């Protein structure tokens, strides 16, 4: 097992309680941070090379330095805990087991940004995590770690947890802000970016849970030390939530740069494909990133071994590469159906489209209907080209990235598994033998 920066004490009993957390070195980073100047903290984060863990991988230090700081206008830090990407469940794990790590990260980051009111926007379905966080925050208030004059430093911070109504779109930062303000969660049209006008028109930084938690080890060990972990521009550790046909599904903290093959087959991590079957495909970073067939996920098109890092996974662009995304590692074995899997993803995006702009509103539904027709055995030969055309007309033409997220899986599945689509259309009678393991509405039980 590589270096554990975030999940080091995750198995300590009672770690969700403040005294146990402090006994294991908790809130040391806060004490250290409060002795520093906010600008020095931002500098440390810049030096660490930390990149956003929510999916896009934007350098966090740079994002922080873009924050507008007009005189007399309050600034806000918002933690995006609206984790709803299919295949990603790392933030839920982190928050439910180590709530104080997030709270400490929030205080440190808020201090660095000069925010006196901060919010954790949590997905509505994670109500039990909401209660865990509320408990942790109450403990922190009681211990003087939140509220007025934190640890005698003169710095004030109020931290609120806001549960959402359960919409995937509210994970998009401007939709999140709208929802936080109590409005309909529709993404805003950018510019202005949240760094200039975010919550209530004030400068706002929106960061993922894991990004904020990562500021704690960065402050503890220093930015330069943190940057030594990892590979190239992918520094530090990353939580990967692995699921699908593997022996040991779960959340793993890896050092960025770990070879994909090792992650997949090592007993420390996924433990290999289940039942000794062959690997068919992997969706490496949550449902919206392109799916890759076995040969391309293990090695790049150039023949180099592929690593778990932002750069290596993206090697080859969308033709032969994918993205690290939010770290939802979905494994499909040889018995799985890429087409049915894709239909399931497309159903999700159809259901979650906010309906604001036309390509996504109409296109996601259309793709779902065509795919449904194919998996039901009524596909037509021209459907594959039709799907390709629909996705190309959604990709890049919408207000927010949900349109892209809906079109990339379709594009990559057709690109790498066209033969399987053709098989479905030519031999609909064979479809009944194909198993798939997702709970799908109107679906008959899979053949044992």
């Amino acid at each position, binding site marked *: 097992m590589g270096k554990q920066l975030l999940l080091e004490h995750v198995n300590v009993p009672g770690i969700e309680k403040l005294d146990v957390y402090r006994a294991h070195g908790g809130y040391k980073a806060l004490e250290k941070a409060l002795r520093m100047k906010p600008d020095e903290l931002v500098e440390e984060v810049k030096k660490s090379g930390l990149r956003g863990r929510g999916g896009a991988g934007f350098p966090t230090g740079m994002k922080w330095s873009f924050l507008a700081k007009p005189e007399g206008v309050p600034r806000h830090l918002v933690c995006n805990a609206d984790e709803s990407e299919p295949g990603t469940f790392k933030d839920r794990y982190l928050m439910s087991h180590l709530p104080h790590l997030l709270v400490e990260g929030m205080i440190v980051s808020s201090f660095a940004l000069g925010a006196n009111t901060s919010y954790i926007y949590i997905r509505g379905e994670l109500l039990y995590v909401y209660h865990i966080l509320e408990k942790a925050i109450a403990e922190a208030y009681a211990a003087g770690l939140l509220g007025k004059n934190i640890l005698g430093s003169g710095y004030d911070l109020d931290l609120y947890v806001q549960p959402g109504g359960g919409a995937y779109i509210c994970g998009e930062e401007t939709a999140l802000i709208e929802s936080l303000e109590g409005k309909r969660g529709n993404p805003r049209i950018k510019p202005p970016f949240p760094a200039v006008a975010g919550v209530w028109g004030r400068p706002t930084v929106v960061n993922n849970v894991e990004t904020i938690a990562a500021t704690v080890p960065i402050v503890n060990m220093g930015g330069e030390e943190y940057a030594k972990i990892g590979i190239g521009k992918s520094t530090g550790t990353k939580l990967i939530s692995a699921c699908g046909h593997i022996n040991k599904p779960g959340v793993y903290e890896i050092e960025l740069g770990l070879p994909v093959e090792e992650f997949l087959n090592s007993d420390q991590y996924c433990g290999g494909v289940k039942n000794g079957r062959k690997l068919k495909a992997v969706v490496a970073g949550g449902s919206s990133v392109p799916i890759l067939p076995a040969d391309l996920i293990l090695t790049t098109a150039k023949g180099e071994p592929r690593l778990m890092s932002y750069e290596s996974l993206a090697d080859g662009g969308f033709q032969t590469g994918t993205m690290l995304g939010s770290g939802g590692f979905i494994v499909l074995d040889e018995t799985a159906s890429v087409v049915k899997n894709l239909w399931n993803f497309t159903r999700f995006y*159809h259901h979650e489209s906010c309906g604001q702009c036309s390509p996504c509103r109409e296109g996601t539904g259309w793709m779902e209907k065509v795919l449904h027709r194919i998996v039901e055995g009524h596909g037509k030969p021209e459907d594959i080209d039709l799907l390709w055309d629909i996705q190309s007309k959604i990709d890049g033409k919408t207000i927010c990235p949900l349109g892209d997220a809906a079109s990339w899986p379709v594009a990559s599945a057709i690109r790498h598994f066209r033969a399987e689509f053709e098989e479905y259309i030519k031999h609909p009678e064979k479809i009944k033998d194909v198993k798939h393991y997702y709970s799908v509405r109107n679906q008959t039980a899979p053949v044992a």
Partner: protein
Amino acid sequence: MPKVTIDGREIEVQKGTTILQAARMLGPDVAPPAMCYYSKLKTSGGYCRTCIVRVTKMNSQNPNPMPKPVASCRTEVMDGMEVVNFTSPEVLEARKGVVEFLLINHPLDCPVCDQAGECHLQDLGYEHGASTTRYDFERREFDKIDIGPYVQLHMTRCILCYRCVKTADQLTDGRVHGVINRGDVAEISTYIQNSIENEFSGNVIDVCPVGALTDKTFRFKSRVWFTKPVDAHRNCTKCSGKVRLWFKGSDVLRVTARKDQWGEVEDWICNDCRFDHKKVSDWNIEGPSPISHHSVISQNHYELVKLKLETGKKLNEVKGKKKESAK
């Protein structure tokens, strides 16, 4: 003041002008179509994506193109920006896709729709759409709801441009209608089936680009191309009183606000003028209205389409020649 080049034509505009506004200043042969943008409504635009263009040069400092097509109605011009609209086959193809998306769930009940003849979606489909559809599923339908005595809501025809929501928001206080639900079942509705009772509620009819909001007092009375528009005014205490009367013979069948070249109202009018004054004696007649290109009432309306395509072709030829001479 920033200078912007759209389809090879340069114009100098005020700072803060959007690409679409600049294109409209240049004239209808470069202006992208717009279904949701409305210059009289703040924060409108950005939703329908029909006005997408490609920015081939960001500004004079940064000659890189923007990575994705942008909504011209919400993108401000920068000095030295270069934009392609009708000259770019890629933009035309993308726009064709958007038009297709807008039409796949549209009922296409034009023969019984009061908007037919002055419908922007008809124009858009004719100018930028394909002649056939590839959509062979059942089209979406909504239950009819009653939103009051004056305005007929036909949600199945709606393209969710949000114009009526913004009109109600910005013109009146106490908006009672909005968008409910999500995705492709999102709908304009009053929550819960309140009727809209407001002095200016009739304006939502004028801003609606399709037949989703129509005038109940004009319902099924006549096709619009059989009526003759005449400008008129009266002394109104609530609004400017400047309207357009639609005559059939000597009867006033309908009163609307005056619309400009882009199909946008010039002055908002009140419900009194719109619904309750349908006698010729109520009005001072000014004369026949100039008819905009956005109306099949005007003859040779679709000539302009040809003009646009020819402009594009010519500019492409010029470009080709330049390239050849460079070789």
